[in-house]
């Protein structure tokens, strides 16, 4: 251990030993503030006169900025909006039921101790202007069906509260405090009806990789992640009540921890179960909302949300399948939910979301492009027609500015 590490350890130990803040701190602050303000009362009186004068001069001001504005995603309902010259997108992209609600770019932020934190920057649809605007406040963001609100997590994960962000005003209207759990929240997802959230909890930042766990990669060394999931909470968005259940990271029973398994948990198709991705057959575990393992629902036996995030079609008659192309061609397939057999072969590279029962939004390589030179496209079952929705991403995987879409029902 060197002096810097000792400083770090010492500060951490000291911080951990600090008792909780006094319960009446907020009250004390507000009282002290009132006293200070009283001293400035004379000055304030002058200001009040000015404000009143302004209000009388412009009565219309009061009505401006009210929440009656129509959402940009609603105004274009039913229309297909494409922007083939934009990558990353600047203006609303939407097809059928779905719209691109937000997207994020990622970069590795090196820490002084050589750890790295994969840090996201979100760009979110401004529901007033219909344009995507950077909102750098959040470490994690997910958009609710209807695209009126988003759930956000502040920087420095894991956190102990979830913000409800209004996409019209861009303000957090409510904070949901998370109590009675181990660690804090590192990822959230809305249920399909938007009434619940599943919050995956961790005892460390799930985006951090540790130099102390580094492994040799090619001619260099790279920091590695550690298993840090503690469980998950199901949160009632309306009441803010949550119900936490312990569920540590999935461990391969034979070989110990397997890093390939996604640690964050999602809802299944109808929001009644939890979908946990694992990197060994059958690729996932379904659990009830208390964390107990249950058999896969009959229609979701062949759903693989990692290889084909689109999952089950809205009418439940088809399941999005994985990449089905060759070495030089791209193709995907949709499967029969009951048998897992191919129902149709389609264009595209990765099936992202169902626009309706017959059409899907997918990634596909731009004509003449290479593997990572992909753009958003709309593909239709039973047709070879491909409609471009966005411009092509930068051709390097993980290069800065390479964006990942977040879709929501509009």
């Amino acid at each position, binding site marked *: *251990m*060197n*002096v*810097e590490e*000792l*400083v*770090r*350890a*010492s*500060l*951490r*130990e*000291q*911080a951990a030993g*600090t*008792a*909780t*803040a*006094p319960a009446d*701190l*907020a009250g*004390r*602050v*507000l009282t*002290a*503030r009132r006293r*200070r303000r009283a001293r400035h009362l004379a000055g304030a009186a002058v200001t009040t006169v000015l404000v009143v004068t302004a209000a009388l001069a412009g009565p219309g001001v009061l009505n401006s900025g009210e929440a009656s504005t129509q959402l940009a995603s609603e105004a274009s309902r039913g229309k297909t909006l494409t922007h083939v010259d934009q990558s990353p997108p600047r203006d609303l992209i939407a097809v059928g039921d779905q719209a691109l609600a937000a997207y994020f770019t990622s970069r590795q*932020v*090196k*820490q*002084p*101790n*050589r750890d790295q934190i994969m840090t996201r920057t979100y760009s979110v649809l401004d529901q007033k202007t219909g344009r995507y605007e950077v909102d750098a*406040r959040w470490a994690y963001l997910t958009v609710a069906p209807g695209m009126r609100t988003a759930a956000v997590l*502040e920087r420095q994960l894991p956190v*102990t*509260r979830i913000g409800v962000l209004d996409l019209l005003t861009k303000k957090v209207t409510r*904070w949901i*405090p998370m109590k009675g759990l181990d660690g804090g929240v590192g990822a959230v997802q809305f249920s399909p009806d938007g009434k619940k959230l599943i919050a995956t909890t961790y005892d460390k930042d799930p985006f951090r990789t540790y*130099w102390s766990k580094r492994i040799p990669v090619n001619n260099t060394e790279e920091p590695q992640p550690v298993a840090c999931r503690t469980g998950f909470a199901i949160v009632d968005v309306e009441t803010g009540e949550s119900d936490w259940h312990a569920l540590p990271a999935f461990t391969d029973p034979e070989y110990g921890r397997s890093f390939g398994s996604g640690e964050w948990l999602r809802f299944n198709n109808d929001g009644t179960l939890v979908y946990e991705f694992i990197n060994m057959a059958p690729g996932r575990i379904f659990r009830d909302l208390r964390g107990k393992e249950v058999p896969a629902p009959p229609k979701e036996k062949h759903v693989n949300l990692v290889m084909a995030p689109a999952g089950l079609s809205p009418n439940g008659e088809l399941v999005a399948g994985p990449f089905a192309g060759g070495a030089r061609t791209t193709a995907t397939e949709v499967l029969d939910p009951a048998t897992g057999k191919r129902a149709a072969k389609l264009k595209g590279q990765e099936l992202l979301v169902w626009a309706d029962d017959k059409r899907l939004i997918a990634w596909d390589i731009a004509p003449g492009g290479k593997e990572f030179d992909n753009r958003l496209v709309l593909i239709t079952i039973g047709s070879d027609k491909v409609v471009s929705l966005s411009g092509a991403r930068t051709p390097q995987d993980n290069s800065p500015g390479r964006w990942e879409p977040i879709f929501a029902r509009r």
Partner: protein
Amino acid sequence: MDATGQESFLEFVTNRSTALLRTAVLLSGGDRHAGEDLLQNALIKAAGRWHRIDEPEAYVRQILYRQQVSRWRLKGRRKELTVADPPDPGVDARTASGADGTGAAELRLVMRDALSRLTARQRAVLVLRYFEDLPEADVARLLGCSVGTVRSTTHRSLARLRVLAPELSLLDPSDDEKPEQQPPSRDFAPVEVRP
């Protein structure tokens, strides 16, 4: 502050005050009362601008750091040095840094004591660099100074720690993760610092 603002302020304080207090206590060199005082003043300032603040936590933290540094400007250094007891000379670093863990804890106590005897600015820089793990550029922005100042203050603070706690100079340099950046000959010998 209107009713909604007051509600969100109360919620913020309830949720984040313990984390903020930790930082405030570290900045105050482990003095809990001084830490509470620092945090309360920062919160009063934030409350006055509550409806205009987008990121309350970042805002309050910035006030904490700047307030602490400007306090130091007002008070002068001598007062800072009289707060804590001198480090216990009985702790031997050779046993202290032993593998049994108990010694390491003693060494951290020595370190804690030495930290409390730094100036507020030196401590603020170390807290930002090693507790908040912020890059130098962010520290400079938060404290309103240049990156060069952050770098030199960090270096001087670490040197000062070695003077205040000579036991630290016996730490094993071979375990250092960045030996090429910190030559042991310079980094691990006591450095003379003028008062």
